[in-house]
């Protein structure tokens, strides 16, 4: 423990300030309490100015353990700005939902056509009570997740194969371009005839919609790998497989994580599109069914749940990306 830090601890002890000290990975963290405020590290020492000032001044001698008042204010400003952004976001959402409800209540909109937040809520509650809500969610989620995984794994494998052999890449390039441009929904009737009307057809549709982008993005990531690093490995006598495992795959990891994010969105498009064409269950089915029988409450409720699920799945991928990129260093 550095000398000035001991002084700070002494100070804390003399003034009966709760003080905890820890060391991990060469970073020193501390925690102390002034009144009811717990201060951690060096970021929030503004609690009780005179007391904190003294501790801060002692700690400032070791720049690492404390920051100046200006820096603290700067950090505070950044935090405040972040808070404002979040608050405005929430306000917009609440405002729109509120306006929607109000307009439906006072009769500006016909709630039969536009539904309303309260009707959506009660529809969801009814579905949940009837026990069908989670059944439909489960079916769609299963189709989407399965399609997503198959598309990513298969797409990655195909990208590897194309990278390993330039001739194969040259041969298949125009096919990939055409498949990418083709609106996959055009294949709907074929898929129904080939795969039947069960969820295999929908998973197939999901894979079809997302796999091409997976292949193209992953391959682009492979091809973009630094040529100097490739030369370095070649000079060490690396074969193609070593090049792939030691360099190309780890180097293109950020591109792959990005691909995952794009693939999540496409997988949802694929599964809902599939359910539009042919299905007996799922959120897409609820939306189509609701539209056909003019139950707009059902359409809105299913759409709302879809928003939550798609956002949630994207968030999971984004969090995984953050962890992976952080661990990679």
């Amino acid at each position, binding site marked *: 423990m550095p000398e000035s830090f001991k002084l700070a601890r002494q100070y804390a002890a003399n003034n009966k300030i709760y003080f905890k000290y820890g060391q991990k990975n060469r970073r020193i963290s501390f925690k102390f309490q002034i009144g009811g405020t717990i201060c951690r590290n060096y970021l929030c020492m503004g609690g009780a100015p005179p007391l904190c000032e003294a501790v801060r001044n002692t700690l400032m001698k070791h720049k690492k353990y404390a920051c100046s008042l200006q820096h603290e204010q700067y950090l505070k400003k950044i935090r405040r700005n972040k808070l404002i952004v979040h608050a405005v976001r929430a306000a917009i959402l609440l405002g729109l939902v509120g306006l929607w409800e109000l307009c439906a209540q006072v009769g500006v909109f016909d709630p039969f056509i536009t539904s309303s937040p309260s009707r959506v809520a009660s529809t969801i509650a009814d579905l949940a009570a009837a026990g069908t809500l989670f059944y439909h969610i489960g079916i769609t989620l299963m189709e989407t997740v399965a399609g997503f995984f198959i598309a990513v794994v298969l797409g990655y494998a195909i990208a590897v194969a194309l990278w390993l052999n330039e001739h194969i890449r040259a041969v298949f390039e125009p096919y990939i371009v055409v498949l990418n441009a083709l609106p996959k929904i055009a294949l709907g009737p074929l898929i129904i005839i080939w795969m039947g009307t069960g969820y295999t057809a929908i998973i197939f549709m999901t894979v079809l919609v997302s796999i091409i982008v997976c292949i193209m993005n992953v391959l682009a990531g492979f091809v973009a790998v630094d040529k100097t690093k490739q030369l*370095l490995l070649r*000079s060490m*006598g*690396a074969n193609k497989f070593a090049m792939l495992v030691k360099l190309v795959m780890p180097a293109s990891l950020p591109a792959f994580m990005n691909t995952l994010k794009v693939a999540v969105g496409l997988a949802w498009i694929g599964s809902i599109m599939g359910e539009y064409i042919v299905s007996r269950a799922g959120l897409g089915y609820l939306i189509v069914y609701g539209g056909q029988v003019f139950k707009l409450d059902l359409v809105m409720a299913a759409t709302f749940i879809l928003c939550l699920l798609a956002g949630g799945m994207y968030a999971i991928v984004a969090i995984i990306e953050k962890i992976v990129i952080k661990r990679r260093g």
Partner: protein
Amino acid sequence: MSLKFTDVSYTYHTVSGETDAVSGLTFSVDEGQFVAVIGPSGCGKSTILSLAAGLISPTRGRIERGGGQFGYMLQTDALFEWRTVEQNIFLPLEIKKKNTPEMRKNAVELAKKYGLEDFLKKSPAQLSGGMRQRVALIRTLAAQPQTLLLDEPFSALDYQTRLAVCDDVHDIIKSEKKTALLVTHDISEAIALSDKVVVLSARPARVVGEHIIDFGGGSPKKRRESSRFAAVFEVLRQELGI
């Protein structure tokens, strides 16, 4: 004899045509010698290293390689940012299937010997440009090559770092008793570092002159301070036709 080029020519082909990179090149590098090859930019210097390393085969002529392995050091450090410094140093061991505890221990000792002990567990991003280049050199040495091929290894550094790293690399290579072939366009670097300077013409590269450099006691710093430095510099400059 560690490396000998005899009447070596190399032509490379692209769709738009063929280019003679080097033509009738003859020179040799003795065991333990530090040879610098200088030439105008774009004269096929890197081609010479690729030929020496055996990455490409000469169109005509013969290249004899003495015993021992070759290690390549590039213009940029090309450190893998997802690996720690230590893992970067182990890279050639993994590729050459020499990843034994003994070889790893040797590599770590080499790194410690040359001041990388505190950085072994760090990521390359936390290192300065000069330090990164030193890691690149230790990585090259980890597989215990006998001959080092240096492709303008200082050109990506700023001038001050460059002087320091230049001396650094020279000292390490000399104290490890390695043979080295350096290609560069920097005349003063060539004089400061090498035992012999080979001057090349513009493309297709031919040897226009060979100079043994033996003043200054072999230290780059003493060389630069020496009164003979300017004279040799002038001779090389004229041979390059600048």
